[in-house]
């Protein structure tokens, strides 16, 4: 079955993972900018990372027939240092016209601090000024509910932001409804222990329908599974979901959202 992996941190994965994803039917992979597992020491580290995302990684994906796209930002885990964040945000516009850049992301909150919130507002401003799509990371575990509420407040307050051009990622049962009610897209992440399992993702689809929802693996340098999306498609089949419904959530929905960038296409 063909599918789109709309959220994967491929710089942290092996070439074998690209091959396995291609064999499983992946046609395009999208990579939001995120935390490397350690704090970068200067803006130059981000410059190199953005070059990696826009030059090197598309070439690595192309070897397996996969289209590679990315999102650019300073992630919320490094947003406590506002001065560094300002320097990184100043750097981003020079990359926005590159052919695989879809928008600003994954911006958001991590510990819901004042500085994180300030940097979030700065990056929403950046997206609005340059007419970019927005991909939002919501916090982990006990911080998710509060973080999602704060993020929605920021986005709803800025009238330049069209909700249908925003995806709020890593929703779970306690946050999905408020995101969909705000008119935004919601991403469900299949991640061991800390986010959703395939069974729970399908429960959410059965409860809320298939509109403005997508699935992703968010595979990265931690324990995660780059094949989580096709494995969930198999689970949907076991639960009697029609092929057209499966195709909608693993391919058509991400394609519909991402095509708003004007750049996205599948391989």
């Amino acid at each position, binding site marked *: 079955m063909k599918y789109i992996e709309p959220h994967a941190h491929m710089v942290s994965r092996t070439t074998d993972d690209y091959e396995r994803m291609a064999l499983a039917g992946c046609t395009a992979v999208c990579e939001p900018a995120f*935390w490397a597992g350690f704090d970068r020491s200067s803006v130059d580290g981000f410059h190199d990372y953005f070059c990696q995302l826009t030059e090197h990684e598309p070439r690595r994906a192309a070897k397996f027939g996969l289209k590679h796209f990315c999102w650019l930002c300073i992630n919320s*885990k490094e947003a*406590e240092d506002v001065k560094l964040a300002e320097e990184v945000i100043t750097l981003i516009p020079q990359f926005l016209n590159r052919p695989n850049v879809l928008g600003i992301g994954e911006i958001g909150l*991590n*510990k*819901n*601090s*004042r*500085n*994180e*919130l300030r940097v979030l507002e700065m990056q929403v401003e950046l997206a609005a000024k340059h007419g970019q799509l927005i991909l939002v990371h919501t*916090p*982990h*575990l*006990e*911080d*998710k*509910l*509060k973080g999602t*509420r*704060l993020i929605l407040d920021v986005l709803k307050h800025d009238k330049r932001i069209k909700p249908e051009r925003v995806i709020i990622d890593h929703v*779970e*049962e*306690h946050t999905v409804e408020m995101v969909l009610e705000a008119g935004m897209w919601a991403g469900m992440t299949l991640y061991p222990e800390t986010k959703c399992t395939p*069974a*729970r993702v399908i*429960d959410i689809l059965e409860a809320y329908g298939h509109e403005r929802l997508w699935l992703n693996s968010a595979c990265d340098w931690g324990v995660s599974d780059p094949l989580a999306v096709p494995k969930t498609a198999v689970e949907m089949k*076991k*639960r*009697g979901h029609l092929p057209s419904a499966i195709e909608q959530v693993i391919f058509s929905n991400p394609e519909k959202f991402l095509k708003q960038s004007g750049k996205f296409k599948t391989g």
Partner: protein
Amino acid sequence: MTKQQVLDLYFLDARHKLIELAAFLDRVERADGKDDFRLKVFRVALEGLTSNKKQKARDVLLAFSDPTMEPVAKATTKGAAGAFQK
């Protein structure tokens, strides 16, 4: 899916997870020392599982969540504990 189909597909998995949960409680209860905030919230969340409410997964997640809206002064860590400490 019918109830029977759900049970056929997920009962053994749920049974396995319930036993793991019970074993975790046995393990932590026979260990020396005091409970912390995580276990207290855990027990509150458990109570909800036997209710007749329809959104048990959501309610468990809410039990572990920070219900406040005021941003914290500073992020002093990057990780999350899994339960909100009042």
